[in-house]
């Protein structure tokens, strides 16, 4: 596997949204004064750059010259019985060749079949059968991209009857089989733990921090039902207090990691995103020594 051109720094990044192109670019330009929460890197969904050119690519090229990028794919469908979506894989490979992102990731999930693509991240049972199939597909992606990827723990609303291992064991086995790493989504831990009545702290503690290459922080929606609360991973609000505490718990034991503030629906003003980033930054600064930001990479 090739080393990426720009390693992702163990600092805070934000998801790059078209409505934030101007303020985000100003924030990372060489002349911008440093302020807490200034993103050290940006994450994009490569599926949003599936066209060949136009303004989105002009912006992304400009960002790529000023800050490291992380490509967070939602389209590979690694857990599909049919296997990975090859069209998406080729698109992703082309974008990786073009932008040399520091990290590439996708999800521990599946998205339907070639004849019926679901724009959602559906859960995978934690069984040996699913593990071996999933590992085969991760290896296929890594071979094509010529690099290792990170796989994100999912937000779960459903538990499978036939699970033979827990989520951490599944992810650790996947890493051992493929050499991939883990993208630890703290919000997904809170969502899954609440929905499936699991212990969120134990879920965080169970993850081997040495395998975690990136952390995600986001908000979620809540529905109250007679059968208990249902948390919905909509990335449409601030990070919850419970997720901040889980993040602190992880950082305390693992040290600083590249950490993303995700906000994909009801997207707020860029300053709101920066305030969340500053909060994450303060936690990492407080709990571990973080190196000075090095945003000028061009």
């Amino acid at each position: 596997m090739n080393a990426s051109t720009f390693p992702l720094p163990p600092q805070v990044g934000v998801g790059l949204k078209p409505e934030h192109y101007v303020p985000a670019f100003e924030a990372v330009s060489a002349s911008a004064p440093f302020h807490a929460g200034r993103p050290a890197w940006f994450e994009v969904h490569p599926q949003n750059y599936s066209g060949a050119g136009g303004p989105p690519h002009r912006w992304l090229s400009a960002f790529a010259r000023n800050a490291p990028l992380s490509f967070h794919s939602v389209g590979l469908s690694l857990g599909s019985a049919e296997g990975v979506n090859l069209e998406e894989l080729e698109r992703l490979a082309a974008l990786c060749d073009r932008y040399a992102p520091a990290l590439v990731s996708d999800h521990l999930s599946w998205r339907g079949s070639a004849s019926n693509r679901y724009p959602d991240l559906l859960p995978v049972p934690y069984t040996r059968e699913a593990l071996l199939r999933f590992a085969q597909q991760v290896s296929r992606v890594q071979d094509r991209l010529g690099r290792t990827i990170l796989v994100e723990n999912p937000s779960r609303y459903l538990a499978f009857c036939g699970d033979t291992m827990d989520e951490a064991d599944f992810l650790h086995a996947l890493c051992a089989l493929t050499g991939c790493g883990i993208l630890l989504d703290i919000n997904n831990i809170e969502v899954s733990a609440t929905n499936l009545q699991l212990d969120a702290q134990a879920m965080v503690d169970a993850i081997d921090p040495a395998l975690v290459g990136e952390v995600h922080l986001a908000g979620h929606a809540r529905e109250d039902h007679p059968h208990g609360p249902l948390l919905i991973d909509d990335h449409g609000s601030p990070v919850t207090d419970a997720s901040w505490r889980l993040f602190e718990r992880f950082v305390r034991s693992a040290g600083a990691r590249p950490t993303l503030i995700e906000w994909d629906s009801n997207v707020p003003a860029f300053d709101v995103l920066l305030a969340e980033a500053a909060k994450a930054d303060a936690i990492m600064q407080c709990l571990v020594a973080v190196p000075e930001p090095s945003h000028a990479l061009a």
Partner: protein
Amino acid sequence: MRWLDGGQSAVMQALDRGPAYLPEGIFAGPPERVLAGMKVHANTISHARLVALEETFPRTREHLGHDQFNAHSRLFIQQPGVTAAALADIGANFPAFLLEAGEGADAADLARFEQC
């Protein structure tokens, strides 16, 4: 039921046709909880497809009005073949669908223009 040999397609059938098609023995927990979980996924899928159409055809939506556009969109995403496309391409046949649905050529032309 093995997950890769039938389990996954059973879940797809339930997502497409409704919870009555979800076989027992796949998901754990009380039925009302399983139903709520399936509903989250079904809503996410439907919402993402409708939003993709809104984002692809903002002027057509303005031209038709939100309610009319939404009614067409909901019917359109149930047409055979539509959901085989990536989200970015899901509206490929939407202009032709608008014509077939009885909208004027102006709406279909506007949609075609927005596709480019």
